[in-house]
């Protein structure tokens, strides 16, 4: 690994870096032959994923005067200091073995660690927090482990954090750099331009570890809070134009439209709901009638086909998610999604059951929203900070977003409610109303 590459040091410019040829500036790649311009344009000039070998290359026969043999020959690796001799197979052309260094030796890169003299140390590098011995040790280890600071911190004799070690290394390097070169030359140097900031690094790692050590539960809680906040803001937006939201709420309150309807409820909580329920059932009736009419046009049809049509019509106003939940509930009740014996009576019952399940899901949703809305509105009516839902049904909150395992949350709903409310009541006595206005944000950060 080349530290200068990593740091982006200019090559050849400074005295310390050893001679290194800077890479020739990349010239725009030429379009390889054999690929049409249009196709090549699609790659954006990037190298193809598969190495493309020119077909003519493959077909070309080796020149007849070239005699290729493979030989088991010794070699030495210049990257090694011990002159160990190993053998490998080499392609030998016309009896002349290839000369030059071992092909893989060039990959033995090492970081170029700045070296300092005693005088330089005395002059520029003294630090009350570090002795010279410690600094020497650090630089030794940096060289040995190619600036792998995690390893260095592990081997470092006295206990220093990774950040402290890095800070010392980079500040020493920077000081040496500025001492040895005229200031004009180094202003663009990354070590100077972007000095290592220890406090920021420490804070960054702390924050990272906090996120990583978060439990699933906390994570879910956070998303819940965010989702709820979003919902409340949305409902308030809708509440600002109550006339608009009232109409659609009554007109098409399919179960999935209840989001709309509920926002209407937020404005007039007690009146909107019954009317919407009536509207829902009347649209169902209307759907049925039109379905029947279209079936009659067919002159002959299968009972199952009629049932399918009726089910479709009945759930036309419902969203996909709601339809899924209805079917889920049917399965949980042990009822076939498609009746096995679809007689007229069975189909009628089946339809009724589906309708009832729809009603049930609707009621569940209304109950939920009612709880959430009722509490949030009274907490901070129309305040601009949306993030204050404290007493909301935490456990049930994901329900609009996730299908309930069993649609019949009835009991569970109630039980959970009680559990949740009980501790709330005891603590509320101790709280002053002003305290209860404390924004939720603060709570999230004390976790």
């Amino acid at each position: 690994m080349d530290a200068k590459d990593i740091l982006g040091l200019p090559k050849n410019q400074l005295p310390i870096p050893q001679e290194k040829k800077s890479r020739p500036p990349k010239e725009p790649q030429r379009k390889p032959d054999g690929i049409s311009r249009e196709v090549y344009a699609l790659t954006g000039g990037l190298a193809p994923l598969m190495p493309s070998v020119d077909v003519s290359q493959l077909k070309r026969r080796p020149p007849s005067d070239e005699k290729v043999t493979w030989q088991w020959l010794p070699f030495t690796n210049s990257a090694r200091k011990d002159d160990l001799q190993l053998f490998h197979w080499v392609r030998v052309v016309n009896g002349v073995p290839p000369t030059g260094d071992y092909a893989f030796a060039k990959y033995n890169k090492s970081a170029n660690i700045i070296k300092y003299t005693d005088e330089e140390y005395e002059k520029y590098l003294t630090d009350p927090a570090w002795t010279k011995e410690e600094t020497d040790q650090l630089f030794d280890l940096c060289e040995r482990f190619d600036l792998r600071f995690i390893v260095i911190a592990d081997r470092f004799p006295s206990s220093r954090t990774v950040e402290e070690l890095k800070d010392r290394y980079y500040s020493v390097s920077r000081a040496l750099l500025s001492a040895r070169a005229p200031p004009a030359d180094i202003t663009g140097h990354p070590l100077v331009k972007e000095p290592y900031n220890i406090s920021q690094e420490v804070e960054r790692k702390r924050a990272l570890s906090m996120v990583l050590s978060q439990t699933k539960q906390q994570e879910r809680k956070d998303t819940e809070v965010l989702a709820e906040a979003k919902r409340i803001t949305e409902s308030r937006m809708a509440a600002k134009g109550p006339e608009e939201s009232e109409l659609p709420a009554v007109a098409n309150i399919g179960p999935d439209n209840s989001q709309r309807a509920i926002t209407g409820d937020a404005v007039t909580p007690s009146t909107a709901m019954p009317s919407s329920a009536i509207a829902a059932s009347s649209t169902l009736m209307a759907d049925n009638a039109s379905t029947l009419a279209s079936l009659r046009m067919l002159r002959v049809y299968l009972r199952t086909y009629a049932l399918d049509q009726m089910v479709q019509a009945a759930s036309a106003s419902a969203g996909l998610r709601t339809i899924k939940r209805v079917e889920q509930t049917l399965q949980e009740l042990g009822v076939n999604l498609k009746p096995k014996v679809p007689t007229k009576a069975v189909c009628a019952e089946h339809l009724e059951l589906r309708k009832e399940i729809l009603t049930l899901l609707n009621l569940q949703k209304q109950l939920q929203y009612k709880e959430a809305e009722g509490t949030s509105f009274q907490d901070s009516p129309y305040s601009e900070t949306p993030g204050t839902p404290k007493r909301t049904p935490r456990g049930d909150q994901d329900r609009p977003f996730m299908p309930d395992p069993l649609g019949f949350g009835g009991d569970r709903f109630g039980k959970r409610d009680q559990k949740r409310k009980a501790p709330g009541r005891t603590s509320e006595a101790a709280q002053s109303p002003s305290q209860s206005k404390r924004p939720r944000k603060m709570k999230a950060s004390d976790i």
Partner: protein
Amino acid sequence: MSARKQGDGQPEDGGATAGKRLKIAKFSEDPEKKGLSRRLKDAEISLPIVYGTIAFYLGRKASESQSHKWTVYVRGATNEDLSAVIKRVVFQLHPSFNNPTRVMEAPPFELSECGWGEFEIAISLFFHPDVCDKQLDLYHHLKLYPEDESGPQSTKKPVVVESYDEIVFPDPSEAFYARAQNNPAVIVPRMPAGFNISAPVAPENTSERERGDTKDHPLSQWFMNFSEADELLKLAAARQQVQAHIVKLRRQLSVMDGMPQLSKPAPAYE
């Protein structure tokens, strides 16, 4: 189990047979059509059918191309004769069969074949002219291999797949109604008292006719039973459960509504 209908628009005229099972429906005369083509508005006649396949593994006699002998059929749900309503059944087999379109002009509407592969059989039902001028298509997937791959297939126990369905004829013609009234295969609505259709029921000679029912069909021991009562019982139980929950939720909601907002407990931290 999907059905599609195609039509070719022909007027219907009278035929004659008998019927008896009853159902409730309203009746009103269609003012536009009189006589034989008069229709019974808002009534419906339905024909419960079962269609499906029974496949026997041939065991030692099985060859590469003929491992199973199977039968596809359309029968009355209680094995009654369907010929009063259904005139012709066309089975559309896989194109690899010889003459893949097989037409059955008389009951029992069934077809036996040998083969090795499963495929979808299209079954087209054609009705008598007074019943309906449109055909009705059924689709059935031929099943040869049992679902649970437990050991070698037995030659004794066939793979049976059947579907129950009802063919519904809305607004049937009076002629069909009269014919269907005493037919055990058909479900006919009960007409209001005083209504009397002058049914010129030609006394059909049943003994003369070939027997069309499948009551002592050789495969009848494998026919499945479709019990409406079981299904209704299950549905009723489910509905009861759901209704109970609805009541509970309604109560909860009304309790919440009754609670004035301000009297609600103050928010509490968890």
